């Protein structure tokens, strides 16, 4: 298990908060670049309201000389871009927190128990040329506080703001410098030394899934915009020309999934990206996928429900949905990455598995994973299995042949002289509608029989640590669980991370069988993975740590929850 969180200044958690439209995103991107370039590690996550302007949002940037990959509750440095931001962050502000805000905003909040650092962000920005540079001033303050070398920062600024001779670059540079100076002057004791971050790749969850899709050979994506899944659609749209992909925005999610199946019928590897509500609408399409045995990859980025719920927040409430979406019975696969590398690798793998087993594959992520970014050493490109599983349609081709498989060899129309017929009704071997009830039984058995091959391809869980009390994590909570377990300081803990919830590796049961206690950690209110665990392994968790307020698990507070649960065990 990772060794971290010695309580000292191994890392600084910096939060930028302000209204939508105030340019938090620019600060976050710029600081990300600056930190990476100067050799620091950075982890970022954000929380924001479902609106375009106003309100209060925040982005965490956790900075360290060592790799960091999950959020903490603790705020060491708060850059408040407006007054409401201080109120918004109030709960996370402690006496240790250094709050940088304009003097007026800070005064209005006399109550807060924090190290106050009044900096006239707007004033400095205006001095540098324009009020809108405030966010650049803030970035400068952060860079100053963190002790970045100014000379290494300046070239990055130029690249970031465009043409070096432009007014904009000059103004921003001036603004940055002014902030930097203020930041240094604060003498906050929050400097972070450079680490080995040079040359690493700084990417988001959305990027990782997008690149995984490219590695998986995606040729077609059709979707309807829906937070937090749209990032993948945007990513592939940006690279459509370069990688030869048809990208289409559908009129609705139902069209999206049916188009996707059409595409894959022609052998073009296809995916859809959506969130829980969109997947609900696709449920009939999921069932169609099961019946046609046409592969499909569903990226489902979770957010809290029911219905519209909290559209820009995170949660893990849709595990049971992807397990059961669609009527009737047919096999499926559910993957749930816990890291950016897994997000890449499992997305690529989803395409392979879908085509190999001719089933719907669900890639289950969430806003927490989509909107996060941090450095990865490299993408496991060499491990990508690029095998194709397409047959040729010979003269007597029968799409649902019972002679081979399961699955029956899949050919695509135009690949030979044979015909390729799909039917959503129960069908005969050729793919024509049938009312032969014996054949029906054989077709059901064949479809369900694919579960055997699928089981052979199942991914094993990852066990970190030697302890006999096992914390079970699935999907995007992995890193927070690992760090939290370490933070408890207890060596009787181990963390088991499951990146394939369904079907579940036998190993999961075997490992948990031997545990003294099992604690599940989930981003929902009813313990869905716990139920699945009981169903598939017979093991009932001894304790559950559930969070369903729309925010991700954070290592430090999760560690406290773990500790208090452990007292009870």
């Amino acid at each position, binding site marked *: 298990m990772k060794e971290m969180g010695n309580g000292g200044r191994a890392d600084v958690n910096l939060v930028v908060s302000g209204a939508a439209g105030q340019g938090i995103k620019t600060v976050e991107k710029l600081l*990300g670049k600056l930190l990476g370039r100067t050799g620091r590690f950075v982890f970022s996550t954000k929380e924001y309201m479902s609106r375009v302007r106003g309100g209060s949002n925040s982005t965490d940037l956790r900075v360290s000389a060592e790799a960091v990959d999950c959020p903490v509750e603790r705020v060491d440095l708060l850059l408040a871009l407006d007054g409401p931001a201080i109120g918004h962050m109030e709960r996370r502000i402690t006496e240790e927190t250094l709050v940088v805000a304009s003097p007026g905003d800070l005064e209005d909040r006399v109550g807060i128990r924090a190290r106050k650092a009044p900096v006239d962000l707007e004033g400095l920005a205006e001095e540098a040329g324009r009020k809108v540079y405030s966010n650049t001033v803030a970035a400068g303050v952060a860079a100053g506080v963190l002790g970045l070398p100014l000379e290494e920062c300046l070239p990055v600024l130029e690249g970031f703001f465009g043409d070096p001779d432009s007014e904009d670059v000059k103004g921003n540079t001036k603004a940055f410098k002014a902030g930097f100076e203020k930041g240094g002057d604060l003498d906050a004791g929050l400097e972070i030394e450079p680490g080995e971050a040079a040359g*690493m*790749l*700084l*990417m988001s969850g959305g*990027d990782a899934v997008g*690149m995984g899709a*490219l*590695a*998986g*050979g995606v*040729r*077609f994506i*059709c979707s309807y915009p829906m937070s937090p899944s749209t990032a993948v659609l945007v990513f592939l749209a940006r*690279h*459509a020309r370069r*990688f*030869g992909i*048809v990208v*289409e925005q559908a*009129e609705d999610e*139902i*069209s999206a999934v*049916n*188009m996707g*199946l*059409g*595409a894959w*019928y*022609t*052998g*073009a590897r*296809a995916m859809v990206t959506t969130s829980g509500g969109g997947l609900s609408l696709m449920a009939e*399409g999921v069932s*169609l996928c099961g019946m046609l045995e046409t592969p499909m990859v569903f990226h489902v980025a979770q957010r809290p429900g029911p219905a519209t719920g909290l559209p820009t927040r995170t949660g893990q409430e849709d595990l049971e949905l992807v397990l059961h979406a669609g009527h009737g019975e047919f096999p499926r696969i559910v993957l749930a990455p816990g890291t950016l590398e897994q997000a890449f690798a499992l997305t690529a793998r989803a395409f392979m598995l879908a085509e190999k087993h001719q089933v719907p594959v669900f890639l289950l992520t969430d806003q927490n994973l989509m909107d996060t970014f941090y*450095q990865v050493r490299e*993408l496991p*490109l060499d491990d*990508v299995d*690029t095998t*194709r599983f*397409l047959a040729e*349609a010979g003269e007597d081709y029968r799409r649902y042949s019972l002679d081979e498989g399961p699955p029956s060899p899949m050919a*695509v*129309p*135009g*690949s*030979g*002289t*044979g*015909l*390729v*017929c*799909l*039917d*959503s*009704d129960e069908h005969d071997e050729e*793919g*024509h*509608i049938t009312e032969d009830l014996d054949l029906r039984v054989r077709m059901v058995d064949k479809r369900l029989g694919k579960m055997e091959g699928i089981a052979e391809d199942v991914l094993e869980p990852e066990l970190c640590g030697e302890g006999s009390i096992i914390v079970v994590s699935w999907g995007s909570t992995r890193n927070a669980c690992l760090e939290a377990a370490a933070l408890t300081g207890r060596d009787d803990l181990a963390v088991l991370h499951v990146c394939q919830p369904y079907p579940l590796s036998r190993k999961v049961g075997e490992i948990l069988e031997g545990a003294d206690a099992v604690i599940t950690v989930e981003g929902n209110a009813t313990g869905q993975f716990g139920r699945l665990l009981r169903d598939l392994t017979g093991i009932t968790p001894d304790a559950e740590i559930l969070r369903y307020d729309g925010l991700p698990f954070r290592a430090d507070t999760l560690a406290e929850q773990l500790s208090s649960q452990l007292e009870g065990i």
Partner: protein
Amino acid sequence: MTMAYRHGTEGLDMAWCPGCGNFGIRNALLKALEDLEIPAEELVVVSGIGQAAKMPHYIKCSCFNGLHGRALPPATAIAVCNRDLTVIAEGGDGDMYGEGGNHFIHCVRRNPDITHLVHDNMVYGLTKGQASPTSMIGFETPVQPEGVILRPFDPVAVAVALDASFVARSFAGDPDHLSGIIVEAVKHRGYALVDILQPCVSFNRVNDYDWFRENSFEVGDDHDPTNREAAFSLAVGSEKLALGVIYRNEDRKTFEEQQPVWEEDGTPLFRRGPDLEELRRLAGEYEV
């Protein structure tokens, strides 16, 4: 090369009622495919669910017989992923204008190079006789025992309003007319709607062969199908239903033509693998 029209009816257990207009449509379709000389293995018929939607099981073709109401999305995707294929989407009025109404609208906007054949019998056949979107006001059914009260959907007028690139209507009782129209529709570059008046002898005793004959007229030579306003007037200007090509707009580009994937390379997408080298370069761009 196997011709699509090879199939007879012998050996086929066809689920249509004797006398149904679907037989006339099938004959016309086979005739059109014969005229067009489309090899069976290059033809994909995409359909939904309903009596009409059983068509691909009764001709020689590849097919994607998907969900009720959902033929147009897969048809579009198939057309854009493999341009060697001829794609026909086929189904009933409930299928295409009821459950599938949203896809109809947006497919017309997208303008993929597909032919859209709608068997318009003004009733739900397979589910035994409920009203369809095109049922006439007053039409009595088990679900509408006092008669339909919704205004019938006029696919031709709506398609013209959507600026569909090809809009036609024909009649199952006149296979010659119909096969001619289908030939034109398939040849048309882009989306082509053919709304086909089809008697349902089991559940629609009102709109029978005679009714359709008496309540339709052929578009005259004087009609200019490229004139959108004239087309609209033709669609709504009379109590009777206009038969023929009502509107065409050859200026619209197809969906496929505008895809970067097809700009330089004609290879069907299924023959293209991932480009891991280019991906490696892309990943490199994430280096900070």
